[in-house]
């Protein structure tokens, strides 16, 4: 007779998307999400205690079973041809903008990057890292973009709250003169390099 932890292990193993606590609760008929979380903790402890090849990751609103990073060299050999196309710098910057400003329209992304972002956005839609969240009530009724769960999984984030706080990095001193130009002008960067973002956040 399989234990609940065994069932959970099987669910994790068979699931190709992050497994949500709610789903675990439902399948195992647990009273609430807390009970599901407790069971997950039990299984994670078991995995951490045994030093096997696998580990459990909390990502994209759920949990995934993955190989430990130390095993990557051998896996690369196994999947000789496996080359996950890395994202380009424009793609990463566009994701960064959408990540912390979502939902955001193309004209807004264009304005921040200073260049046309249509092709990059299309590409990210196609990769399912972004999706359309609706239309903005603005000239041309442009599409609004937001990040997907795929985005969270690709970057190992539990949710968008895991993104480092960039806004909070700014110190906002009292500005004597210009009041006309609103928040943009009122934000003062501590220095030239001032955009450092702490990892982990």
């Amino acid at each position, binding site marked *: 007779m399989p234990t609940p932890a065994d069932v959970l292990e099987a669910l994790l193993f*068979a*699931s*190709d998307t992050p497994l949500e606590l709610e789903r675990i609760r439902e399948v195992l008929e647990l009273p609430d999400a807390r009970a599901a979380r407790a069971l997950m903790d039990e299984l994670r402890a078991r995995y951490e205690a045994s030093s096997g090849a696998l580990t459990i990751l909390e990502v994209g609103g759920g949990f995934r*079973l993955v*190989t430990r*990073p130390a095993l*990557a060299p051998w*896996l690369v050999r196994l999947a000789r041809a496996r080359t996950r196309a*890395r*994202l*380009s*710098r*424009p*793609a*990463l*910057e566009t*994701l*960064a903008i959408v*990540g*912390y400003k979502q939902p955001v329209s*193309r*004209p807004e992304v*264009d304005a*921040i*990057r*200073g*260049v*046309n972002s*249509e*092709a990059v956005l299309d*590409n990210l839609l196609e*990769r399912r890292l972004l999706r359309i969240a609706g*239309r*903005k009530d*603005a*000239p*041309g*009724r*442009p*599409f609004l973009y937001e990040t997907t769960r795929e985005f969270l*999984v*690709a*970057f*190992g984030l539990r949710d968008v709250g895991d993104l480092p706080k*960039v806004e909070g*990095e*700014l110190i906002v001193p009292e500005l004597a*003169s*210009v009041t006309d*130009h609103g928040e*943009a*002008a009122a*934000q003062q*960067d501590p220095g*030239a390099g*001032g*955009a*450092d*973002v702490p*990892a982990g956040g």
Partner: protein
Amino acid sequence: MTADGPAPDTLAPSRDLTLRVGTFEGPLDLLLHLCRTSEIDLAHLPVRTITDQYLAHLEAVEFRDLETAGAYLVMAATLIYLKSKLLVPPDPSETELLDEEGLALRQELEARLREYARVKTLGAWLATREAEQALLWGRPGSGLPPAEEIPLEDLSVHLLERAVRRLIEDQQRLRPREVEPNPPSVLERMTEILSLLRDTWSLLFSSLAGGERRRSEVVVTLLAVLELVRLGRIRTQQTELFGEIVIERQTASPAEEPTRADAS
């Protein structure tokens, strides 16, 4: 961080050109690079230095397409304009003095640069996360029985009812517009363009009319742009026939300050 060059997922046809541009992803990127290499404080932008450096670099840049070229040139024009607003004759030891408008413009530029710097840093952070995740392997494919083999459990018919209600409501809301196409008025569109230009000093026509390629929308937008040009509220540039139209804010309207027209 990934290599500075574009990865395979960028636009294929423009790749070679992009590489020759160097590693800049646009005018802000170039400007930021100049600030970083000269250790310039993004909160105190030396207009003269940065303009001269920007223009010097611009000559070496090969543009990937006309639209990108336009974006670089708009920035160049802005910097030149800003430089022309410096009040005192050049004296490197002095802090630069600008009039109120120039000051505001410079602060806006500084704010945009800082924002872009943050975006860049966050992009680099994402790149390291991506690299970390590339070391992890999950299961290839799903181990669950395929969807078509799973009998569906009962679904509430109310879900369908709700969906169809929503659709009918949408249709009823939109119908007047459908029957008698009623594009936004030119005046409305003019107001919208001006309000967008409060947040940024340049816009691409395609991004204004791009969301929905309805002819009527494009026409109204074009009329609005022409009217704003006539009123001296905006400037436009189109570097080539059928090329991208760049819309810029015209800070001082000739109607209010007729003398400015000669200066620019």
